[in-house]
């Protein structure tokens, strides 16, 4: 092979060197990418009131759309109604709702795992807002107070539901994952103490009236109403009565039972706004059916028979479908399906009626029988029923529990929580639910959480 070129390589040196220079440019700059325009950095988020607002309402959208408080089938309204004696399940036995209905939840149940993780995800966002706003100098004291108040209210609300579903749970107050990944289950008293602290701060921070004018954002009254319920669950009758009274005195009563679930209903303390104008509530989609037998779920005979003769709620809030032989019932509290127009409905989270019944119960316990009867009658009279005949403490408590059952049926698991705190779960459900066990008073801690955080041990009994 000829080598003359090898003898005079200098001629080619220049292009080679040029090429090498090009090749070996390994540019730090080239692999630098900007934050893409569909993402907003955490730093920028807390520079602007509008973006913090977007993160804040993100929590309400999530609460409305999924888990705990949603009106879709995954929410407590449906799941816990099936879990107790309010509804029967007619659908496919392999669908998750069947496990709630048959009270045979496993620790590996996906719905339970999602209830848990979705709630803690929303708690994370609340904490991120609390920390982000505190660390930013871009907001006025009012703005800071407002965001902090809402975030703390949400944090308290979610932990309150979690502690009642799962028992001892970690109360998460930071975004620091190093701390949160080894979070321990805290005694009930500690969780409740934190709920109260957060709600009290929320009451301090929140405005009297929310900016929306539609009661779709928490204000002082909303936090007080929740705190009244918290004290009720804690059996702190005095505080429950004081807070309920405060709410009652500052909220107009809705006298027409046909208007209770309308968006303008005066008895509303806090409600979720639907995504769009006419998308209406998820509750209507979940509960209403038009054929018999029902495709998925229907109110149980136990609930239907619980209504007294002449109860307007039986007539106005319950729909009926018959196949000619049998009749099936559904909750018609919300009537508008997506796209339908009429008297617009919003999904209620806190209603004034509950505050009356909270005060009634507290007054009973504190010996104010007449006051308790008056509160109870407020609810009964609106439903077209005569004044209560209950006069003793135990009769009144029974009457109030009954009234709560027919007033708040299929609303956010009220029936379950009431039976639980009255210690009547076994009596009420043991005989009519073949799968019921005493240990079903708590949901299982999701198995996958136990696998990654041993501090959550031990599992709740029975799972």
């Amino acid at each position, binding site marked *: 092979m*000829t080598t003359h*070129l*090898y003898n005079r390589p200098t001629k*080619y040196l220049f292009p080679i060197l040029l090429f*090498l220079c090009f090749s*070996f440019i*390994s540019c*730090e700059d*080239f*692999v*630098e990418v900007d934050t*893409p325009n*569909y*993402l907003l*950095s*955490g730093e920028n988020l807390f520079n602007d009131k509008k*973006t913090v607002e*977007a*993160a804040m*309402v*993100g929590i*309400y*959208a999530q609460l409305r759309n999924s888990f705990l408080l949603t009106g879709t089938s995954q929410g407590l309204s449906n799941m816990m109604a099936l879990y107790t004696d309010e509804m*029967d399940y007619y*659908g*496919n*036995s*392999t669908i998750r709702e069947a496990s709630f209905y048959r009270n*045979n939840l*496993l620790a*590996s149940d996906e719905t339970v*795992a999602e209830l*848990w*993780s979705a709630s*803690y995800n929303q*708690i*994370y966002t609340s904490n*991120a807002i609390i920390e982000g706003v505190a660390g930013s100098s871009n907001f006025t004291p009012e703005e800071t107070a407002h965001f902090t108040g809402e975030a703390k209210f949400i944090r308290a609300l979610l932990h309150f539901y979690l502690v009642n579903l799962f028992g001892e749970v970690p109360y*998460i107050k930071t975004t620091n*994952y190093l701390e*949160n*990944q080894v979070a321990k289950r805290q005694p009930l008293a500690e969780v409740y103490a934190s709920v109260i602290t957060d709600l009290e701060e929320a009451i301090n921070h929140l405005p009297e009236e929310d900016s929306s004018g539609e009661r*779709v*954002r928490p204000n002082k009254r909303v936090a007080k109403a929740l705190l009244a319920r918290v004290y009720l669950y804690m059996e702190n009758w005095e505080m429950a009565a004081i807070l309920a009274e405060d709410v009652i005195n500052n909220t107009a009563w809705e006298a027409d039972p046909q208007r209770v679930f309308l968006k303008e209903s005066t008895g509303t303390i806090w409600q979720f706004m639907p*995504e769009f104008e006419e998308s209406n509530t998820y509750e209507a989609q979940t509960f209403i059916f*038009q*054929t018999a*037998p*029902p*495709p998925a779920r229907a109110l149980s005979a136990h609930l239907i028979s619980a209504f007294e003769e002449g109860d307007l709620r039986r007539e106005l809030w319950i729909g009926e479908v018959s*196949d000619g032989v049998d009749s099936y019932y559904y909750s018609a509290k919300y009537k508008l399906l*997506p*796209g339908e127009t009429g008297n617009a409905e919003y999904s209620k989270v806190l209603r004034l009626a509950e505050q009356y019944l909270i005060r009634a119960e507290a007054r009973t316990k504190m010996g104010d029988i007449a006051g308790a009867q008056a509160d109870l009658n407020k609810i009964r009279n609106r439903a077209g029923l005569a004044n209560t005949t209950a006069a003793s403490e135990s009769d009144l408590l029974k009457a109030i529990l009954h009234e709560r059952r027919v007033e708040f049926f299929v609303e956010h698991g009220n029936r379950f929580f009431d039976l639980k705190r009255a210690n009547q779960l076994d009596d009420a459900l043991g005989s009519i639910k073949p799968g019921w066990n005493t240990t079903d008073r708590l949901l299982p801690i*999701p198995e996958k959480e136990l*696998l*990654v955080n*041993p501090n959550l*041990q031990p*599992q709740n009994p029975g*799972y």
Partner: protein
Amino acid sequence: MKNNYRRSLALTGIFAFFLTYNSPIFSQNLPQKNISGNITDGADPLSGVNVLVKNTARGSISDLEGRYSVTASPNDTLVFTYVGYKLREVAVGSGSLLNVTMQVDATALDQVVINAGYYKVSDKEKTGSIARVTAEEIENQPVSNPLAAMQGRMAGVNIVQNTGVPGGGFSVRIRGRNSIRADGSEPLYIVDGVPYPSQSLGNFEVSTVMGDAQSPLNGINPNDIESIEVLKDADATAIYGSRGANGVVLITTKKGKAGKTRFNVSSTTGVGVLSRRMNLLNTEEYLAMRREAFANDGIAEYPAYAYDINGTWDQQRYTDWQKVLLGGAANYTNVNASVQGGDAYTSFLLSGNHRKETTVFPGDFEYNKNSVLANINHTSRDGRVEVRFTANYVVDDNNMPTTSMVYAALSLPPNAPALYNETGGLNWENGTFQNPLAALEGKYLSQTNTLLGSGSISYRLFNNFTLKSNFGYSNIALEESSTSPNTIYDPAYGLDSSFSSISVNNGERKSWIVEPQLEYKRDFGKAEISALVGSTFQSETITNLYQYAYDFTSNNLIYDIGSAAYVDILASSKEEYRYNAVYGRVNLNWAEKYLLNLTGRRDGSSRFGPGKRFANFGAVGVAWIFSEEKGIAKTLPFLSFGKLRGSYGSSGNDQIGNYGYLDTYQGNGFSYQGIPTLQPTRLFNPSFGWETNRKLEVALELGFVENRLLINAAYYRNRSTNQLVGIPLPATTGFPSLQGNLDATVQNTGLELELNTINIQNDNVHWNTTINFSRPRNELISFPGLETSTYANQFVVGEPLDIILQYNYLGVDRETGLYTFQDYDNNGEITSPDDKKKVTRIGVDYFGGLGNNLRYKNFTVAVLFQFVKQKGYNYLYTSALPGDMVNQATEVLDHWQNPGDNATTQQYSAGFNSDAYSAYGRLLGSTATVGDASYVRLKNIALSYQLPLKSEFGLACRLFAQGQNLLTITDFKGLDPETCAQQLPSLRQISAGVEIQF
């Protein structure tokens, strides 16, 4: 088919050979005459064949029509040589016309040129571990995805087809799972030098019918592939640096061949059916189970919703739902046409392909794939400039139901009502029956347009240096939608089209790459040095829009999102990925005996945070061809080839999402009070870096009896450190995981054997056998702090990554009739995680393939068996509670009824016995759900007959028949041992076709 593309390479090689051939002994003084003739391979003319008069320097090269002429005397011998063919010597004799037929030399190791990515190497001189399948093997199989064509054919490459639904995904593991992350072990795909995404643009929430996202490789037409090479060890993969940790799959498309302009048309049609089914209860058995279940639960009056036994449904009725819902025949048609030709300087190829495939589901569904491949190659007259350009355009059109029907086929009670009523409409049995065919009202539609343009320009500066640049552009656009019209519901519900909805996922990936390189090659007598330096600039933009629209005024408008009353944008993003690298290779070949190969790469990726972006990777490979040593050749004369090779080095892995190091918020498509909402994207960690994989390999390659028996044995040990993972976190942190590095080491070791034999070889018969065998082993060798980490209940040091911690199943208690499990903590209760302590290994133990190719005259047969020894989830893993309103495998018949019974299934329960349900729930997390999933599969039979045509136009015609997945031998309890999941198994396909060439 012949590997004719080698022809162009041969031209240059032979030219060099000519110049260096120096033994000019003059021939005797006999009268010289002109000898001419045609050279063919039996069918086609061969151009570029080197013709030499033995013992002279005289010779010539055959032209495009295979003609040659040379001057020689009658005593002379002509020597015909051509790359990939056996050398032929023919005595000249008295005549002047000498036609020669060349025979393919399947055993010529130095003639098999392998694509190693940035460079090519002969099989003989390679220092790394590279497996290969060729066009011939691919075309023998009636498959639509190149990955399907690789199954069972390559040692160390384990491919699982996840579903039999056309367009579905595959799982590919090259030498095991390197990453603790389940999803970080995808290989790097390179098509004609351009990186091709291993991640689908598809969304598994939309393509529910496949159980997973679409396969990204749908954009490559198997018929367009010339060869697929899989790079496995450090020596071969280190030049791909950060992306080579999990192996590299190089796909080379066909190139135009010089010569007479040739047309080729082939057409195949076939049919596919379900390859396996389960034995389920018949009506009598099923109803007996249900009655017993309610009796066991103490429920005398059947509930209103137990339609199967409370008298609502006909209890005499029986339907084999597997037959009705999955028993159809999928038709398959493939038509391919191509034209190619050119001269010694310029060649071209134009190829088009149409493929259509229907499904086994009832209803009208089909998968269409249309593709065009255009290739042009040019070499300048002075040989200095070489240009190659290939454009590949594939339109992939999939129309499927939204569900695969597998679940319905296995679970519907056998006495469920008829599908249609008297009037031919769907039967809803008065609202008691969720008709499975209703799901077919919903459609999954997808269209993917894949454009790949790639090319290279090289310029030979002078003999030793070549300047070269690869460049490429790819654009993959996917649009998929899944509809849920109101007609999927019982019309009695009175739902109108305002309940109709559609999910639409649009994704687009645009990428460009430029790779300037400089090659150096020089021969110093005994030593030959080749070197390469180059750099890569790559930029990729991925956009995604995932929308959900509902409430339409008419179902006819369902594909028009603008006609929906409501539209939620569930995801919208535009991501950018930048990648930059510098790499090099130095190869030293000493006397064709000692080989040294050094490769290295410095890489930067935008997926990492500042300061963590760049990393270095490198490898050294050595080989000793000891059969070239004189001493060994003398003592071991039966040894025709012997090579010992080894390599060590590192490569990396950056298969994580973009922007993981940023603290960000993003929209989720929802609004509240009219305000579009924002939510935190993730927990962020600004400081994660590369995962590194150190690979070691030792291999021995031996050839006997003129290489008619070739044995290739390799041992490898790969260690993957600084594991880049989404560390699982408890939900209390707000998120399920955090991106970060773990100080854990995963080791993959394994043994790979390849055996090729030529059993018979003569003019009429050629029979060869290939065997490949792989025995991979995976082990987590260190994980400091595992016990206190969130992985404590997932991994065990000293065990493979593919383990599950399970309840140890002990059988059915004879007294209680319930499943029982080992109580590890002796607390009287079976709870997780304290009693989930049994380590169960799943995954492959060994796998391989056995192929036989026989040619007798014009007739060829190719048969491939695939074998896999493995453990996997059996049917119990997805089974329902025995006694529930779901059909069951016949195994449940052996069940507990009375105290003292010894049974495999616990007492039936309708779901109201909490103890029975809990025991069933634990069974799903127990060792009972894992079993032997080994199988031997007759993967492929291909028969072909070349018609003995004598035509002036070179007309050739071939008839062929092919079968895929014809037979599966297995003890697996479940639907399909390949997927071990409730997915449609790969179909059994039979097809026939014809190929005409002129």
